[in-house]
């Protein structure tokens, strides 16, 4: 089975621009998560979807971040406008049940200059 795929793998944008990250979870996984690691820090939870519904978005840094999962399949995470502190690696993960093992994608490395 195909794993979790993320696109793009790298993105370099200027401060103030918009970037959209995409995640395709493992087929059949209702649970989709976004996590982020900023330089030197631990991986932190951003939000959790169950199908198309946001179950928990308590980890979203601010309203410049918008996540969607239309149709309960792939998800996008948009950052608008991007700030320098948004630089980091954004991971997407999916699981069949909420407490099961997370299957991570390879991440998108975002650099805001």
């Amino acid at each position: 089975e195909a794993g979790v795929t993320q696109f793009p793998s790298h993105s370099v944008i200027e401060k103030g621009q918009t970037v959209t990250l995409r995640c395709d979870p493992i087929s059949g996984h209702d649970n989709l998560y976004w996590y982020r690691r900023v330089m030197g820090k631990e991986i932190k939870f951003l939000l959790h979807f169950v199908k198309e519904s946001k179950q928990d978005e308590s980890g979203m840094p601010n309203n410049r971040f918008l996540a969607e999962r239309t149709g309960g399949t792939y998800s996008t995470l948009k950052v608008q406008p991007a700030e320098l502190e948004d630089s980091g690696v954004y991971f997407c993960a999916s699981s069949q049940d909420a407490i099961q093992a997370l299957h991570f994608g390879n991440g998108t490395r975002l650099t805001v200059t």
Partner: protein
Amino acid sequence: TQLLEQSPQFLSIQEGENLTVYCNSSSVFSSLQWYRQEPGEGPVLLVTVVTGGEVKKLKRLTFQFGDARKDSSLHITAAQPGDTGLYLCAGAQWTYKYIFGTGTRLKVLA
């Protein structure tokens, strides 16, 4: 904010040596997972432990969950260069939201 502290942060050892990595918290977790991450990839699950005192073995890796479910350890016997990577623990508190540890970067020299 709950924090999972891992120690050591960095570890460089020779092939064939044994090592132990620790994951500690002041909080109780319902389950704890260990992941390994290699450069350019996402974390890959190694094991999940859910019962206090539980010990699980995966080939040369032995995982233990503390009796109070606040800490865990990962012991590698006869380390090999293929064990090189970033080891992460992650705990959940009766929910889906995993808190990740600070990570231990292991390098095994041939």
